[in-house]
């Protein structure tokens, strides 16, 4: 999905952002840049995250099993020290073993802080979750590692969802989910060059964690919660549909279009229809929005996450329809016909001679 360096350099030369001398200098800098380039495919990062988490669980298990800390205060202080040391070490090392050790130490340090705080102050679940949220928000800023930042962001998002669900108040769940959705859009739609180097490093792991939390939270509400009467689903779906409409407007603006153009009206009608038909499964319109966002920003992880979520939500939607198999078959076939009809409209409306025209 992402352009190659070669294409990028050529475009910059073509538009005058780089001279041919600059392009040659860029090419000469590549071997030196490779030494500090932290890029890695998603599956390498996933392995690294899993390894850090597993090693941290074992380390924390060791500290607890060895009964090194008689009181919560000791665990809390040692955890904070371990976390701070991990952040300092990670900012200074590049060796993969040291990086892995720093990540595991950071996660184990966090676990010790939370266990210690719970032991020292006897916090209720919600207060502990809020403390974890605040601690992880600080870690996202301080721990200069994409995997560590993703783990911390995901933990913070998980804590926010936990607090909302534990409160057993539908309004708070809806608010948190809408905030996660809005946060996902805000992080990914902000100009990539905006902010300093630290923000540019925080943005991708934070954005992926927010999107994963948003979609995960939408999956959580599908489970039966006795304190929910599902009446809030309309409000939630309407809110997500509104966010999706904002995304459409943003994408159109990037292509010098507007919501009042034909493409804008068609996209808006499509989004509203999707929200109206699937109002009991807000994840459908949510996953569609994340899918469009991933394609818009050429983010393969976001894109893959959204496809998996969309398939899951669509499957749930049809499964949960309170209809006979015969009626469901009719609904499925009709939905399929609508999708194929929309494709045919798109094909006829944009014959090859019109391709390349602004949307």
């Amino acid at each position, binding site marked *: 999905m*992402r*352009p190659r*360096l*070669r294409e*990028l350099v050529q475009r*910059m030369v073509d538009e005058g*952002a780089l001279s041919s001398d*600059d392009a040659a*200098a*860029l090419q*000469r*800098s*590549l071997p030196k840049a490779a030494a*500090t*380039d*932290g*890029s*890695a*495919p998603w*599956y390498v990062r996933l*392995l690294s995250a899993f*390894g850090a988490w*597993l*090693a941290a669980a*074992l*380390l924390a298990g060791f500290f607890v*099993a060895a009964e090194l800390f008689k009181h919560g205060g000791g665990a809390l202080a040692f955890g904070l020290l371990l976390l701070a040391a991990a952040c300092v070490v990670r900012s200074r090392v590049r060796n*993969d*073993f040291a990086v*892995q050790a720093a990540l*595991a130490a950071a996660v184990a340090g966090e676990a010790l802080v939370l266990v210690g705080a719970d032991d020292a102050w006897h916090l209720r679940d919600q207060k502990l979750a809020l403390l974890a949220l605040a601690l992880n928000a600080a870690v996202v800023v301080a721990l200069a590692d994409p995997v560590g930042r993703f783990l911390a962001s995901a933990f913070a998002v998980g804590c926010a969802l936990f607090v909302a669900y534990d409160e057993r108040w539908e309004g708070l769940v809806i608010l948190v989910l809408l905030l996660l959705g809005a946060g996902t859009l805000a992080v990914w739609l902000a*100009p*990539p*060059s905006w902010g300093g180097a630290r923000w*540019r490093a925080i943005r991708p792991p934070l954005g992926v964690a927010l999107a994963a939390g948003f979609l995960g939270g939408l999956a959580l509400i599908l489970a039966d919660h006795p304190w929910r009467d599902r009446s809030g689903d309309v409000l939630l779906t309407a809110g997500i549909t509104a966010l999706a409409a904002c995304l459409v407007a943003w*994408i159109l603006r*990037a*292509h010098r279009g507007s919501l009042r153009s034909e493409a804008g009206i068609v996209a808006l009608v499509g989004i509203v229809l999707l929200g109206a038909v699937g109002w009991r499964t807000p994840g459908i319109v949510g996953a569609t929005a994340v899918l469009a966002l991933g*394609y*818009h920003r*050429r983010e393969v992880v976001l894109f893959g996450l959204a496809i998996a979520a969309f398939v899951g939500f669509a499957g749930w939607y*049809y499964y949960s329809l309170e209809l006979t198999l015969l009626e*469901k*078959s*009719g609904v499925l076939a009709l*939905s*399929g*016909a*609508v*999708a194929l*009809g*929309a494709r045919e409209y*798109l*094909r006829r409306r*944009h014959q090859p001679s019109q*391709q*390349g*025209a*602004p*949307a």
Partner: protein
Amino acid sequence: MVADPLDRAATAERLTAIAAAGGLSDQALARALELASESPPPAQWRAFLSRSLLFLGAALMLAGVIFFFAFNWADLGRFAKLALLELAVAGAATGAWQFGRNAAGEAALTAAAVLVGPLLAVYGQAYQTGADAWELFAFWAALILPWVALARMPALWLVEIALWNVTAVLLWQQRLSSRFEDELDPVWAVLALIDGGAWLLGESLQRGALRWPRPRWPLRLLAVAAFAFASPRAFGLALGIGSHLGEQSLGLLLLAALAGAAYFLSRRPERRDLFLLAVAGAAVLAFIGCVAGRFLFSAMDDVGAVLVMALVVLGEVGALVAWLRKMGSTEVDEA
């Protein structure tokens, strides 16, 4: 051949590293970051929407047809049911022929191949053939094989291989398992062989004159399935759980063969697939971790073993990531 660094994806981290190395000014970096995540042009958006709607529409229609026949509507006679399905298969196949080799043609042929299954099921139901479920899947796989072979669609080959997998499982459960002792369950090895064999055959075809299949995701999916079927028995052997030593040894042998194949296929940088190396490396290190864990927890007290195990995991994952980075530095990445 070492891949040209300019052929690597323009990620934000890479561009920032280039700027830090003096290859881009602050202003040029800002522009490069904008261009690297710029929205695709309208024509690409239309193509993306068109393919997505086609896939979604075809999948929903197919699900609708399957649900319709699963309902087993009593008011509809067996001839009517068979005629409807035959018409649907014929219509989809004709559509595939008419549309030709494009997305619509491929979707129509996939629909025709999938609809053969419900047709056989309705036939078996209508005439009470007494056939076992494995026979239905075997016939299904056999009947669509000519289409699959002629179409040369990787996704359709995956459907065919999935049918072989289901046939093997059902054949074992419905026919063969009763002839052997209770705890023997070799079907996972057969599945690893089917999927691993298909993966390696695909690799040899892709690296040969045919240069098919493209893209690589179907091969990766087959390799992951093969590792997933082979690994659990090998892990059981390492941990000393489970009773069938022969089965577990076979699992280890298959795991070693698959990992060796992944490494052998990646020995030349221009043909290296980092994803497969990551899967193979993770499976091998998980096996080693299981062996180390078993040894440590039997030789030391639990507290010490937990600490040493944490260090083992750190060492293993650190080594794997370092190795993948080294191997990846000469691969044309797909970020």
